[in-house]
């Protein structure tokens, strides 16, 4: 039952294969998706900056409402006001990307801090961080967003702060769950899907992934002695 191409063999021994050869198909998909986003954003900024847009995204054409794709030079057609959809998409990527970046920065900064704290100082600190994680995980993200919209004025940056904060538990438990020894022992990558899923799935014991599985198996760390 050999499934993991990432298995690292003996303790402390590193794989001879290049990271690309040992990577999961899924990892490649993630990397590819990330690169696609970067490329799209770059294209958006470059085209936007040099005004190489096919049409003015704001230009309203009453004679071309809801035009189908490909008509009259509009590659993706026009919307209900006759504005060129391709141009609006290109410019729209910028509005899509920047707030998202804010959300990710918030989750990474807060999550890494909390996770590192919990990982290095177990005991009360870890309990506190676990409590915080469970607290944030108790909210459906969209309900929290609606709550914030109701409280403050609707704005993309308010929403992204909420998205960032709700992303903290995942990052924190990911960091906390990989104790330093794991790196020396040549264990599985701390970001592997095993650690990620189980740490999220445990409602209470979310920091120590897969604590006390039947058969005393600790996944995320028993992985390397499996053939």
């Amino acid at each position: 039952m050999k499934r993991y191409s990432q298995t690292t063999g003996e303790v402390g021994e590193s794989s001879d294969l290049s990271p690309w050869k040992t990577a999961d198909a899924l990892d490649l998909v993630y990397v590819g998706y990330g690169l696609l986003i970067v490329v799209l954003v770059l294209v958006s900024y470059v085209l936007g900056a040099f005004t190489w847009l096919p049409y003015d995204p704001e230009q309203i054409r009453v004679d071309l409402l809801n035009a189908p794709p490909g008509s009259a030079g509009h590659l993706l057609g026009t919307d209900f006001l006759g504005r060129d959809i391709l141009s609006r998409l290109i410019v729209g990527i910028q509005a899509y990307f920047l707030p998202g970046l804010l959300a990710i920065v918030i989750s990474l900064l807060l999550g890494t801090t909390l996770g590192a704290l919990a990982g290095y100082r177990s005991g009360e600190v870890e309990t506190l961080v676990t409590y915080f994680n469970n607290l944030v995980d108790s909210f459906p993200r969209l309900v929290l967003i609606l709550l914030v919209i109701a409280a403050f004025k609707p704005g993309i940056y308010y929403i992204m702060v909420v998205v960032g904060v709700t992303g903290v538990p995942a990052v924190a438990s990911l960091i906390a769950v990989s104790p330093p020894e794991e790196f020396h022992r040549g264990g599985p990558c701390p970001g592997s899907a095993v650690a990620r899923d189980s740490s999220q799935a445990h409602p209470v014991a979310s920091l120590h992934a897969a604590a006390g599985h039947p058969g005393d198996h600790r996944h995320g760390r028993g992985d390397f002695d499996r053939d």
Partner: protein
Amino acid sequence: MKLAATKPITLVLARELALAALLLVGVSFVVFVILYLSPGDPFSVLLEGQISNHAARAGLREALGVPRTWYVQYLSWLGNLLQGNFGTSIRTGLPVFGEIARVALSTLYLTLGSMLVTLLIAVPIALHSSVRGTTALNWLLTMLAYVVSALPVFWLGYVAVYVFIHQFGVFPLTARIAASSERTWPFSLLPIFVLGIGNGTVSEVVRHLREEMSRVMGEDYIRTARAKGASVWRHAFKEGLLIPMTEIIASKIPFILGGAVIVEQVFNWPGMGRMAWQAAQDRDFPVIMGIAMIAATLVRLGSLLQRVVYVAVNPRASNERRGAAWAE
């Protein structure tokens, strides 16, 4: 013997209930603080243009308890909450709890149905690929699950409405409104399928189940079972399917509830999500506070159930000391 079998569950139940209560108090505090920090107060929306007399406005504010200090406000709200009194809606003037209870059932119907759809899609793929290894068929199916999970639910919802209702007319559009109509259920199929496919959890369920199941299939006790000719399925079921399934469901409840908000909006489904949406636009604080509390309670309930199943399957897990599990 019987005592040993029941004790861990009660122990865990008590501990988890206490923890859930503590977390819900925390949730209520967060909800309160967010709304307390909001600029202005909700009653300005209500009073604007209705009562021009400044003194009368101040009097009404006094009566509604606005000028009190924050902790008095919080504690009185929490006290009411514990008695099942969620306050009255600013917009409709009706008790919030009754309003939510009126629509909660249809949201539950939608979310449970969509959860079932997710599992019906994900479990066969996961089982097939964990038992048979990666074949061309289940590679394709897994990739399909990933692609499908990446579709945003609002997009999928509108496309489904366009294709199935406008183009083909397979489903009725508005049957849910006439609740007594006997053709209610065909309409609810479409939202349930859209949420089940589009809530973005299909791929994660597949991945989690497959990883757990193939881990279990590699365990010694499965090899023993196989060697002595016992049913592998019966031995692998608890640890390989039941536990991961409850784990993943419990952790995805927030996502499914969040997706329900959008699906209810797209399909005009009279549920909690639409109510929350409406309340956010009206700045109807009591309603949205109540919905947030009830959603959090549902999430905690899911975790509780997961924990109970976990300990029921593996009573030893109840003895483990939290926080020291990976320190060994």
